[in-house]
């Protein structure tokens, strides 16, 4: 039976950080088995598995099955760059909505510790000895550095600078202060890769990667996994009161891509698809930005967090700098943002991120977030964006029981 009433029954993330002794299947299995246990179910109850991993060899879903239970259910291996985890969750939700199953499992996993600079290839770029035009631009050599930048820190630096140019108020110091907030938040998160409070001076004087992003303003490459069990409302009613009480309602689940606009061919437009996803999500959920008790947004770089305040409607158009400077996004502010520490300190194991941010929100909505609990949190939003591009937004609400 098709269902529009979808709940998260169980959800877990592993510790983010360095896991040299675990392979991606160990990490994924740890998260998946923990999510099943958290939901009080086993693989026997699961009707579909959606899994994401970018840096491994492919087919991670079936590899996970062999470690947690090989029951013959359909597996969808999905990818959408940094939105991969959210895409896996969306796929499981879609299977439940379609009435194909009443319970699904989504897993995201990545091993990135020591991976270095992403987006910049990784292989040395040497020119051919005899020039020959290649690819859709007919380039005779690598364009990275010669025609702008391919590196993520540089691309997202430009995204933040563009916003600053358009609306004013953005500066190196402002971006660094956003990072200061997230590093401060991380001190309360035992699962974060880095939990060190950093001063504004330390952040601004850290190694410059791509102005205005210093190293501590960039998302941290690390290892980690996260997994979630989703269930239809009808099935949830047959489960225990405790399961129903801890279940978190998925009020909105949205995936978008970037529609064409003039400049998107030269600088990825991370704004329009986020604005579109947010608009659809608020409509689906029947809530607005003012109803949100916390937000986990995709601060892959400090420069990105600024623009997403605006894209998610947390402030007036063009008012992101003022919004931040008002203190609104600190954990004691009007709309706490990235109380987990965000990708800059919690870490960013790419395909795990889109489920881990939902775990963070659920953790608060269940009142289980310990020292970093946002008191009385009822509604939260999780946002993730991958270049290429894809944006996933989920709005979550605590059970009324």
């Amino acid at each position, binding site marked *: 039976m098709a269902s529009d009433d979808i709940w998260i029954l169980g959800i877990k993330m592993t510790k983010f950080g360095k896991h040299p002794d675990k392979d991606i299947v160990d990490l994924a299995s740890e998260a998946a088995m923990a999510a099943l246990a958290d939901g009080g179910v086993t693989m026997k109850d699961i009707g579909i598995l959606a899994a994401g991993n970018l840096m491994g060899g492919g087919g991670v879903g079936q590899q996970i099955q062999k470690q947690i239970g090989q029951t013959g259910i359909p597996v969808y291996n999905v990818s959408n760059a940094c939105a991969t985890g959210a895409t896996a969750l969306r796929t499981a939700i879609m299977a439940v909505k379609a009435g194909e199953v009443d319970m699904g499992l989504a897993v995201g996993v990545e091993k990135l510790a020591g991976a270095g*600079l992403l987006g*910049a*290839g*990784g*292989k*040395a*770029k*040497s*020119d*051919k*000895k*005899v*020039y020959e*035009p290649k*690819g*859709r*631009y*007919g*380039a*005779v*050599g*690598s*364009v*990275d*550095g*010669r*025609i*702008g*930048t*391919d*590196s993520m*820190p*540089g*691309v997202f*630096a*430009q*995204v933040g*600078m*563009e916003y*600053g*140019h358009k609306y004013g108020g953005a500066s*190196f110091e402002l971006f660094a202060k956003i990072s200061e907030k997230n590093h401060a938040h991380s001190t309360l998160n035992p699962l974060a890769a880095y939990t060190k409070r950093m001063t504004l001076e330390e952040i601004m004087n850290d*190694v*410059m*990667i*791509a*102005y*205005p*992003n210093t190293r501590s303003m960039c998302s941290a490459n690390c290892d980690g996994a996260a997994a979630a069990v989703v269930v239809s409302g009808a099935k949830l009613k047959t489960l225990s009161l405790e399961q129903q009480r801890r279940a978190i309602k998925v009020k909105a689940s949205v995936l978008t891509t970037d529609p*064409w606009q*003039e*400049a998107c*061919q*030269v*600088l990825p437009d991370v704004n329009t698809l986020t604005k579109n996803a947010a608009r659809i999500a608020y409509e689906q959920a029947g809530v607005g930005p003012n109803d949100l008790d916390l937000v986990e947004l995709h601060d892959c770089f400090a420069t990105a967090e600024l623009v997403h305040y605006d894209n998610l409607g947390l402030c007036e158009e063009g008012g992101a700098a003022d919004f931040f400077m008002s203190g609104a996004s600190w954990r004691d502010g009007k709309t706490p943002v990235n109380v987990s520490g965000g990708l800059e300190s919690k870490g960013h194991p790419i395909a795990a991120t889109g489920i881990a941010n939902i775990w963070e929100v659920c953790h608060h909505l269940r009142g289980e977030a310990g020292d970093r609990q946002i008191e009385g949190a009822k509604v939260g939003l999780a946002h993730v964006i991958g270049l290429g591009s894809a944006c996933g937004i989920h709005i979550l609400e605590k059970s009324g029981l």
Partner: protein
Amino acid sequence: MSKQIPFVDYLVLGDKPHLVANECTGCGARFFDRRNACASCFGTLFKKVDIVTEGELRAFSIVTFAAPGVKVPFVSAIVDCGGTSVRCTLTNVEPSPEHVKLGMKVRLALVPVGADDEGTEAINYGFEPA
């Protein structure tokens, strides 16, 4: 003198060096790369259009850490050339926040990339303060 070729095929050398785009004849969307159809209106007819050589700096980053083989620091920039956005590296400017300002006027400049084993020289483009 050795043979010269453009570093990318949307750069036209000669007396008046400039960039060219493929413009969709249906909706006017412009693309520097080859497209099977228009991303905006799905049309499949394109014509070549010249891009103006002066523009304004709309976004930048000073990249100080890059993949092996990429010379740093460099200034990556997005330039608005009369309504068409162009991605480039700035040239003839010191790569520091004191010298690169949002909104500054820039113009197209040529940047030699070096010769291949047959002596063919590749010429790239950049933008420099106007």
